[in-house]
């Protein structure tokens, strides 16, 4: 990007590299351009200027400009990003259409921001799918925080990103504008433990009874595993759940419903979590129930 840093005109450089900037002596030592720029920008960062780095053939003197007398004159006008840890550290902010930030894992991320010219056909379908999944996951956040805690290696996602991705790919049916959630394919937990065996659900008065087979012969199933049960109400987008239910060997868990005043559709799901809360199984869809008593 920069040619050799040859400070032919010492007067120009002296004027430009005035205090509090780096002294011209270092510039004249014949440093490599990248290192020269490095040191100079380090000096810039300490004072947290706002200037913008561009190429220009014009000569401009001010306390906020640095000029390298090469075939091009580099004129610093506005740098919108900041380098809090110097040029070797991460950047934070925006330069042009690139924004820099540090994510929670300590990685500096850079991505472009463009001018949005309006959504097109396929984008509407994507936006609708995203909205459906977002509304689906909102009432079950405490559940999926546990159910999707184990992100596969190589993916730096949090539980919500992981749950959204899995369900957006699998649990949306229909085409735009008639997309809807396919509750049979929704997953509220994902893991490596074996799937629950023979999971059933029944509605008894004001209670939802979940039953399953302990299946302790299967490798990965242990008697002290706990069941996680969830009842989702699509009409009101509410959910009831237990994240630490009965032990696997008990083979039965009950969710007590509130007193409903009108007919209510209930989608039910079941999963298992290990005693140390580190491993879990995929959630399984145990069926739809209709509550219609007062």
């Amino acid at each position, binding site marked *: 990007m920069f040619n050799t840093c040859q400070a032919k005109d010492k007067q120009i450089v002296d004027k430009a590299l005035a205090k509090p900037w780096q002294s011209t002596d270092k510039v004249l030592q014949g440093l490599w351009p990248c290192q020269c720029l490095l040191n100079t920008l380090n000096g810039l960062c300490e004072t947290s200027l706002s200037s913008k780095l561009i190429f220009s053939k014009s000569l401009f003197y001010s306390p906020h400009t640095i000029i390298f007398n090469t075939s091009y004159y580099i004129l610093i006008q506005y740098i919108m990003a900041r380098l809090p840890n110097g040029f070797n550290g991460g950047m934070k902010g925006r330069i042009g259409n690139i924004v820099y930030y540090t994510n929670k894992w300590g990685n500096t991320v850079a991505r472009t921001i463009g001018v949005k010219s309006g959504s097109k056909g396929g984008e509407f379908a994507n936006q609708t799918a995203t909205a459906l999944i977002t509304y689906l996951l909102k*009432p079950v*956040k405490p559940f999926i925080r546990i159910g999707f805690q184990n992100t596969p290696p190589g993916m730096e996602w949090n539980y919500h990103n992981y749950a959204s991705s899995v369900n957006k790919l699998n649990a949306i049916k229909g085409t735009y504008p008639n997309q809807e959630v396919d509750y049979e394919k929704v997953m509220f937990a994902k893991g490596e433990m074996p799937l629950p065996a023979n999971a059933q659900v029944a509605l008894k008065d004001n209670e939802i009874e979940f039953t399953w087979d302990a299946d302790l012969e299967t490798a990965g199933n242990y008697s002290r595993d706990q069941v996680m049960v969830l009842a989702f109400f699509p009409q*009101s987008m*509410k959910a*009831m759940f*237990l994240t630490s239910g009965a032990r696997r060997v008990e083979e039965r868990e009950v*969710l*007590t*419903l*509130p*007193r*409903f*005043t009108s007919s209510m559709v209930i989608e039910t799901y079941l999963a298992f979590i290990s005693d140390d809360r580190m491993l879990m199984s995929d959630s399984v869809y145990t069926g739809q129930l209709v509550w219609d008593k007062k």
Partner: protein
Amino acid sequence: MRSIPLRRSKRKKLKALPQHLNLGRMSQFIRDAKELIAIGFKANNPKLDPRSMAMKYNMKNALVKTENGPLINYAKIKLSRGSRERAWSEEMIFTEGNKVTVNWDIPAMLDLKLIGYDKVYIVLYNEINQSMMYAKQHISRSDLTYTGTVSAEYIGKPIHGWIFFVSADGKEVSDSDYLGTGMVLA
């Protein structure tokens, strides 16, 4: 300190009129619910004030654009948004003597110790008079019911109701739930 812009000399463009109507209609409703919006949307976004957040959400979700102008879909109105536990089995019943009874439930699996002291906000809106009222006395979630008296001027007029909860320390709010509509009985 800032200067106020000069009065607009250009005529409003025909294309912008529908948006002005939409904004005006929703803005009028939000203005009526000012006090409650300040409670229900305050913790949502530090960059936007509660009124802007409420306008943004309700313009997108609760405004129906018809040939006769914008109409508000009261069932989709949100007076609060948050992560606190929402109402279960909520219902609103109008009884004689200008009385309104609101019931709600707490499922057995929820921890009463955590949410039992939540403050309940029951909001009634008179669509004809465009006036909003809410019970100002302290109601706890653990009460499970509330009966109040409304003014005689609301007799025979359609009333919409909403309910939402605020934690005892005021830091968390629930999404508001629509109670339905009914007529006040004399």
